[in-house]
């Protein structure tokens, strides 16, 4: 299983059913996963497409979408941040 975390405005359009998924057979990289999420939930895909999206894997920043995704990973999708 892979845990998916959608933060900020992404969390508002992500259905609860996407919180934990069995890793689809055709998903090997972060790019594959992002594309798969967009196919499952076009609204979420459009929201991610419209803004800068950062991916965090197991609480570490992913710098490359070609990074592999493995069973047991937690992948977070972050829209632009606004602290302070």
């Amino acid at each position, binding site marked *: 299983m892979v845990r998916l975390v959608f933060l900020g405005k992404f969390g508002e359009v992500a259905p609860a059913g996407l919180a934990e998924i069995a890793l689809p057979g055709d998903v090997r990289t972060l790019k594959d996963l992002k594309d798969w999420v967009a196919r499952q939930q076009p609204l979420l895909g459009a929201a991610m497409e419209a803004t800068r999206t950062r991916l965090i894997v197991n609480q570490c920043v992913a710098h490359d979408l070609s990074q592999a995704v493995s069973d047991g990973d937690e992948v977070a999708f*972050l*829209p632009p941040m606004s602290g302070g």
Partner: protein
Amino acid sequence: MDVRIVQQAFDPQAEIAAFAKGRDDAGALVSFVGTCRAETGGSAVDELRIDHYPGFTEKEIARLAEETSRRFSCPDLLVVHRVGAIRPGEAIVLVAALSTHRSDAFEVVRILMDYLKTDAPLWKKETGPGGARWVEPRSEDYARRKEAEKG
């Protein structure tokens, strides 16, 4: 260094007093407190909600604070950032720096605040009579962050 994410309202003056207590090694204390405005861009704000990513948010803010602190002669730094539902007038963020001299303390607080605006894993949503909207950094926030990198 003390970096905390808090769910409840906090008293910035009490935090600053506790942070500075007994620190006669420092000759300068500079603090910044950001508060929730009742109005933004001409629209009333009833509530500000800040989301965070537990674990990652704390780790990233601590990293930003450590990196900024290292660039200056800053013996100690305090960061308290509120998350959850915030009412107008309540404190959102407190950054305080203790340093030997004032220039380092001023710079650390200013630059860390610039980083927090764009790089802290936090997401703000304002709710008012006209509805709700997610807040994203303004172009001047990104410009300040770029300047902050240069120091």
